[in-house]
């Protein structure tokens, strides 16, 4: 696959390391009353859609950026690529 890095342009997916569901960006509050449950869900409850999926990829052999890649898991079409840091800072973590 080719991932179009927002800064570096199209790069071979071989340069990246895959982590998984981008919902990992939305880490629960450790002090919340139900923190145990919330962290359990955060860690283990994942959607596994056949279709559009937001995922985290690390550009290990590149600029060491974590990216949020929106990809159709059935066709491998990549619809959007964002810098994860910017997604979080702009509050875009309600995935």
């Amino acid at each position, binding site marked *: *696959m*080719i991932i179009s890095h927002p800064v570096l342009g199209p790069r*071979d997916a071989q340069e990246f*390391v895959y*982590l998984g569901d981008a919902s*990992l*960006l939305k*880490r*629960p509050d*450790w*002090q919340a009353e139900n*923190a*145990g449950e919330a*962290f*359990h869900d*955060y*860690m283990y409850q994942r959607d596994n859609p056949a279709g559009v999926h937001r995922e*985290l990829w*690390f550009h*290990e052999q590149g600029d*060491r*950026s*974590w990216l949020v890649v929106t990809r159709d898991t059935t066709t*491998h*079409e*990549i619809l959007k690529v964002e*810098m*994860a*840091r910017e997604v*979080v*800072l702009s509050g875009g973590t309600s995935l």
Partner: protein
Amino acid sequence: MTQMNRLPGGLVDRSRQLAFTFDGKSYSGFKGDTLASALLANNVKLMGRSFKYHRPRGVLASGSEEPNALVELRSGARREPNTRATVAELFEGLSATSQNRWPSLAFDAMGINDAFSTFLTAGFYYKTFMWPKAFWEKVYEPIIRRAAGLGSVSMEPDPDVYEKGFLHSDLLVIGAGPAGLAAALTAARTGARVILAEEDFELGGRLISEDEALDDKPAKEWLESAIAELRNCKNVRILSRTTVFGAFDHGIHGALERVGDHLSTPDPNLPRQILWRIYAKKTILCAGATERPIAFENNDRPGIMMAGAMRAYANRWSVTADRSIAVFTNNDDGHRTARDLIAKGVEVKAVIDVRPDATALADYPVLSGAKVVDAAGRLGLKSVKVRLADGGSRTISCGALGVSGGWNPAVALTCHQRGRPVWNDEIAAVVPGESLPVGMSVAGAANGTFTTGGALKEGVERSVEALNAIGVDADAISVPAADDRPTTLSAFWHTGEGKGRAWLDFQNDVTVKDVKLAHQEGFLSVEHLKRYTTLGMATDQGKTSNLGGLAIMAELTGKSIPETGTTIFRPPYTPVAIGAFAGRSRDEEFRPVRRTPSHEWAKEQGAIFVETGMWLRAQWFPRAGETHWRQCVDREVLAVRSSVGVCDVTTLGKVDVQGKDAAAFLNKVYCNGFAKLAVGKTRYGLMLREDGVAMDDGTAARLGEDHFVVTTTTANAVSVYRHMEFVRQCLCPQLDVQLISTTEAWAQYAVAGPNSRKLLRKVVDPDFDISNEAFPYMGCAEITVCGGVRARLFRISFSGELAYEIAVPTRYGDSLMRVLMQAGEEFDVTPYGTEALGVLRIEKGHAAGNELNGQTSAAHLGMGRMVSSKKDSIGTVLSRREGLSGDDGLRLVGLEAIDPAVNLPAGSHLFAENSEKVASNDEGWITSAAYSPHLNKSIALGFLQRGSDRMGEQVDVANPLEGVTLKAKVVSPHFVDPEGERLRV
């Protein structure tokens, strides 16, 4: 009589005669020949034996789709089985051997299989060898494996080298026939970056196999000028001898270039093949078409071949399989073969055309409305039996028969992204469907456009469309006038007469009968048909056979072919050697080797090295007279405990952490606290995964208010850095912190033992006070050594002794090791390797990779109290879960063997004394074990349920793999100096 079947003309270079052997017999051919064309020139028709029935076989095709003529090419370690003679380029001294026969090709003992064919029909695996079950492995399978099968491998290491490469292009054109050349020329003139890949060693595709005119001149003239123009374009890369074997996601293609396969003696530096990864914005598939046979009884006789192949052999290679031939066809194309062979002086006995209205193209007899129903001549065709239109029959003697059942577009690559080809009634074949790989379009015969004129025009059109789509202005170029008459065809798959076998899949020996049997037994879907009969499952992926099988199934079920369905193709288009996928990554070059700064010095000392990840580290340093590794390791361990030792620990990961929030960041990634760590101090840190399991440990040294140097274990350096970046960028991007790896910037040595300070005093510049008072345990400082070289000093200890780690810029690392050895002579300083390092840390009870194995928590490690509840760090919340933190869970303990003479094998499981050794009684396991020369006994670390409450208890150590059960006493994991006094002196 040499090359008795050589005709005039052709593209072979008659001035360059090449000698070669086949089954030990010498022949000659010309430069430009393939092994198949050269064998035919020498009247060799019999080239192999079939897979299952060992039927004598000749060549069927003239290209890479060849199912029959598979040989073992070259000899010795370079021997390659299953090489298609049709694509093996002839070179001086080539030696080939037929395969799947014994004792000889003409007489094969296993030909007996043919007589027992009734038992070897479709599904025979499933039926014949049902019982007794035990016979399968011992009796049936070995026999079948010997009897069936193809060539054999040399069993020697491959002496050739392979490379991988990467190419980028705007447009990749696959196939250099008329469509491909027109597409490439169109793009070349725009300045776009073009790759033209052609699997043959000559460009031109069918243009070089046909006797055709372009602009009323021989096609050769246009072809030569087109090739010359492309070769002169800097923006065009022509890859001949290159097969694009796979179309992958987003315009990535796999291609195999055969760089040295056509050379007699390869240069040792020349890669035999290059595996290219081609990145293309757009791709045009111009792979042409494959002619398909018609099934009739004994249609696999040597000498029966595709009519198009027969024509290619005559026109391009100027050879004929025989001086007297016939043609069997259902379309106009078969008549071209007759016309061209007559023009070359070959006698055409008849063209047998199933169409009642067929007429001749030249002066030869036509039997219209007739069909071939049988063939005679076991080792070479002698005659064919024809059923005439009026129902009568005639036997025609001929040494070769050209068969044309129509052409199948080469759609394989269009299927590699799950695209399904669709049926086209006009050409009675499947053409590319709508769902093509991203960026791909198809032109020419591959698209079902079978005329030269149509192919040229379509190549131009597809090229213009593709270029425009990527923003390149492209104009349609003018192409020469060419034959535009459509070929007419009457779909015809098998003659349906006679009791004998009529072959569909030549390589896997699948016949019309097998399809009928599959139908009879209910295997109706194409996928079932394929698997039950193995139709199309050989190395040729059924290029010549799939459609025939489908058509017959359609006929039997009374459905149309599109209703019956189509199978799709998978990569690779043609077989690719595993060596090509490995590239340079084999043997010593399997992966890169990382050398430590003291590597050269250690080598001089005769060190034994061990691979740890990519690093090569000294494992121990043998001295004269030592005959067993344990002697070396025991000596090294005792030296550290009694005086001083030095070990290269550069391989530990080092991450530079800076920023106003550096301490807050470390608070986040480590479960224990770092905010209050003073500048000039180092602290042990434990990292958890978010699920609460221990991930890695190391130290963080605070060099400044906003500057830390963090170490990771050697094995986890890369993944821990990745994790830290994840936390930084994804979980707390608001923190002001910057990370960068400095693992290799500093050569770092552990200097350990009671004399370590005395030794360091000799190299540390005197401005720096390293006394216990000025530089206590867990101190860190930036200092200078040896007259001003900057260095970092950490007072940390893995061994439990007074110890330091000293780091200098890596370029001084080799020198520092030599200086330490020289300065330490008075203390008998001892270099120690990873093995002694391991023993020392087991004696001290320090966890390492074996204990941090991805299953254990801080509590298991006895570090539960380190997990701070006053701050938010990764993994804290989930680490409180019962299974990870409960008092009754696993605890790290020490174990001492009751019998000091035995080793406690790592991996052994722990059981209550004398309990039954079953999984339900399992109470833990041993993670690390060593012989402690300090304690003079075998010791181990392990996890034991309720371990901290069981000190002094005796347990059973069971190792069913080694068949032993030993006794051990549970003790504190800190075998040496549990109070930590030695560290602080």
